[in-house]
């Protein structure tokens, strides 16, 4: 049962539209009627469904045309989004029928997240209901700014203008609070075919467009191309001699020769080529929406999750931001529980550190606060990520201003970033950015160094309480690595005290940490494996770990937490060693971990089996 529309004119563009609204307000009926009255149904479809209805003794409803599953037809409700295709006047529409039942809100959200415009259906007889408002709120959060409101079932109120105007006013005021101005508010009756494709004689007081007209008047969103560049890196390929960075531009445009800055690492290089298969001559430009591949003129460390931009408009970077989150998980959203945050192609563990309020669609001014956010609720929260993340405010950039939260295996919520929150790393981050933007490099790149050394530059950082044998294991690790032919160096932070830090007092912790981080950064730039520890800073170890991360980024920092007791475990470390030690075994574990992370090539001496793609 193909559902494509038949229309002889060639298609020149495509647009996704979602139909939303409270359950039983007539979304599927509207859709069925739209297809039937434009001649867009496959041959025999209407007759077939009518025949089935006669057999089963039920009245034919246009809604049945698209309810694909047995269960949906039995319950008379749509339970999942369905895409249907429909072509009209040179535009190919994918119309997404989203369920209105509260229980299926995650399906409605999935449908609306794909849409550029929405038809929001309200029953003239029942008026504005709970889900009418909730769907309006979610549309605003999902970035659907073009909304046509269809006041359906006007036949049930005898096409009275005052009923229509009342709903128009009530719902218009609600949308205004969400900064949405409806493109049109259309009185209609899907059941009777009034104002769907044909103007209504029943409502001489209405001069506006029909539903079909309103579709044609939705604009394709092209504004993203005129914004500053946002190019999140999806992957780095090395299938042949080319090292290709791939991704999809979410805003702006890029041109061969442009200088790009990668955030949050602040590395930069120029675009050498735009790579494409079966395109001749190769492209010189790319714009928002395109999936592209580029090569750079310099070997710099780039990996998935970084965002490339032009130097004059870089994204924000922090480990904290404020956001509106809608929660779809079975288990409520709670503070201090670990979630995985995914923003474009970047993933980092995160937690909610504050729930400011629950946003009630029925009363947007309400300030209820609670310790948990339940399924289908929207909340204003502050999030803290484990690693710094590049992002934008949603008001400025859509794609880099929104994220999802993954709870165990499932995408369980989505959110839009409303405000930047300062974190304690901000100053060091600014320093790193300034330093990287003016750093002078030689002709030898990190990838070449890695090929020669048999490993990438990395920092192995031991943390944990005093007297946990950190120094002993660190020394042992250095010996084993060097004996294997690796270029490793043990740097004890205490060694800086009498030399580089001789002008500092015991209370200058911040400056001590900063200098230590910059020294590690320098050594890492030479391609070394640096083994070090936080033993000089035991009281502020977390801060030291974060500071080193910030200053050496994007060189990997492997943290190893050691403790004699088996109770005080540090979940944030890459490796945790507790209790009595077998040091040879521990060294072996660390080497295995470094190999798994692609830091050590294996086997050494032969051509590395791991293709360093830095």
């Amino acid at each position: 049962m193909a559902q494509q529309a038949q229309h002889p004119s060639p298609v020149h563009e495509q647009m996704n539209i979602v139909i939303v609204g409270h359950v039983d307000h007539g979304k599927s009926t509207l859709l069925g009627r739209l297809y039937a009255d434009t001649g867009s149904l496959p041959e025999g479809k209407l007759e077939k469904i009518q025949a089935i209805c006669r057999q089963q003794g039920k009245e034919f409803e246009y809604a049945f045309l698209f309810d694909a599953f047995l269960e949906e037809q039995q319950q008379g409700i749509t339970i999942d989004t369905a895409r249907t295709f429909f072509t009209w006047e040179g535009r190919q529409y994918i119309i997404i029928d989203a369920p209105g039942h509260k229980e299926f809100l995650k399906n409605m959200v999935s449908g609306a997240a794909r849409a550029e415009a929405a038809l929001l259906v309200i029953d003239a007889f029942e008026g504005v209901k709970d889900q009418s408002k909730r769907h309006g709120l979610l549309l605003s959060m999902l970035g659907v700014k073009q909304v046509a409101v269809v006041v359906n079932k006007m036949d049930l109120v005898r096409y009275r203008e005052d009923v229509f105007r009342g709903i128009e006013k009530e719902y218009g005021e609600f949308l205004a609070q969400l900064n949405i101005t409806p493109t049109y508010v259309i009185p209609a009756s899907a059941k009777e075919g009034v104002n769907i494709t044909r103007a209504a004689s029943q409502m001489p007081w209405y001069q506006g467009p029909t539903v079909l007209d309103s579709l044609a008047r939705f604009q394709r969103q092209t504004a993203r191309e005129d914004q500053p560049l946002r190019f999140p890196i999806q992957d780095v390929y090395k299938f042949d001699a080319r090292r290709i960075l791939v991704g999809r531009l979410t805003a702006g445009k890029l041109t061969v020769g442009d200088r790009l800055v990668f955030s949050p690492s602040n590395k930069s290089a120029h675009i050498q080529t735009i790579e494409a298969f079966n395109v001749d001559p190769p492209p010189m430009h790319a714009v928002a929406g395109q999936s592209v591949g580029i090569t750079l003129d310099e070997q710099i460390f780039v990996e998935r999750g970084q965002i490339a931009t032009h130097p004059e408009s870089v994204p924000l970077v922090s480990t904290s931001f404020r956001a509106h989150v809608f929660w779809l998980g079975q288990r409520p959203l709670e503070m201090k529980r670990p979630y995985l945050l995914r923003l474009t192609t970047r993933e980092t563990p995160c937690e909610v550190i504050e729930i400011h309020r629950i946003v009630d669609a029925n009363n947007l001014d309400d300030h209820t606060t609670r310790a948990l956010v339940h399924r289908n609720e929207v909340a204003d929260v502050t999030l803290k990520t484990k690693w710094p993340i590049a992002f934008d405010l949603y008001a400025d950039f859509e794609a880099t201003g929104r994220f999802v939260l993954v709870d165990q295996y499932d995408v369980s919520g989505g959110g839009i970033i409303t405000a930047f929150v300062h974190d304690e790393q901000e100053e060091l981050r600014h320093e790193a950015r300034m330093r990287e933007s003016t750093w002078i490099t030689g002709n030898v790149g990190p990838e070449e160094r890695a090929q020669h050394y048999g490993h990438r530059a990395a920092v192995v950082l031991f943390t944990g309480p005093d007297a946990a044998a950190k120094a002993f294991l660190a020394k042992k690790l250095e010996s084993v690595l060097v004996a294997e032919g690796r270029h490793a160096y043990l740097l004890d932070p205490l060694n800086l005290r009498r030399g580089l830090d001789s002008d500092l007092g015991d209370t200058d912790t911040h400056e001590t940490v900063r200098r230590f981080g910059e020294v590690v950064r320098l050594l890492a730039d030479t391609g070394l494996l640096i083994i070090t520890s936080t033993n000089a800073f035991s009281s502020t170890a977390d801060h030291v770990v974060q500071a080193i991360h910030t200053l050496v980024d994007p060189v990997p920092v492997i943290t190893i937490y050691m403790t004699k007791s088996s109770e005080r475990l540090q979940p944030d470390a890459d490796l945790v060693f507790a209790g009595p030690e077998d040091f040879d075994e521990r060294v072996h574990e660390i080497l295995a971990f470094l190999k798994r992370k692609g830091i050590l090539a294996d086997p050494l001496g032969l051509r590395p089996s791991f293709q360093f793609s830095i």
Partner: protein
Amino acid sequence: MKHLRQLEDQSVYILREAYKHFDHLAMLWSMGKDSTVLLWLARKAFFGHVPFPLIHIDTSYKIPEMIEYRDRLAREWRLNLVIGQNQEALAQGMNYTKGRVECCTALKTQALKQVMEEKGYTGLILGVRADEEGTRAKERYFSPRDKNSEWDFRDQPPELWDQYKTTFPPGTHIRIHPLLDWTEINIWEYIKLENIPFLESLYLDQGSGTRYRSLGCAPCTFPIQSTAKTVDDIIAELRQSNIAERAGRAQDAGRGMELLRKEGYM
């Protein structure tokens, strides 16, 4: 043409997400127009390379030209081809006369399960399109299947923006559908735009006044009345036609497809 590039960009993005997230990834290739376009999009996404195996589920009842075409492209494009076949069922004489749904289940669904299990694939890329039939209209781009390859359409995961379901419990797998938003006309328009080699001897009228619109097993797939001799003719014909694409596919009759797809059919 712009709409084809939009579709291409979305499909390429999905393919690259799949390649990034799945260590054990494979693509299903039936040699039909859709999965061949999918294969072409993989070459687009990976710059001429196809960095995962292509599975062909060979029921042994395929039209012979399909096999010849398969082997030729596999050579020319250096494809890693994996053939799946339910030999036990074939040895026991399974064929369509034992029931079309039963035959599809044994020779396609079961054969696919066998090859998935044997090779340990956790991600499977398929060329299904939402406009083919009703149950496919409800699919996600990344659609989880349980331990028995069953599809729980009652409880599909949310799919927000470009964030897909790429984490899943052991023993389950994910079906990836990069062509979900393409229509039949889009497929032909794209074949023309990119000049993709397709099975001309079957899809185009060779003078008999008939051609295949959809390819499958010889006994269960029937040609349609058509004099389309070029891709342009096909596109023009489809713009005028109101007949469902899979009208020539016997297993779609009645509730066949809903039952088949719930249990892991492609």
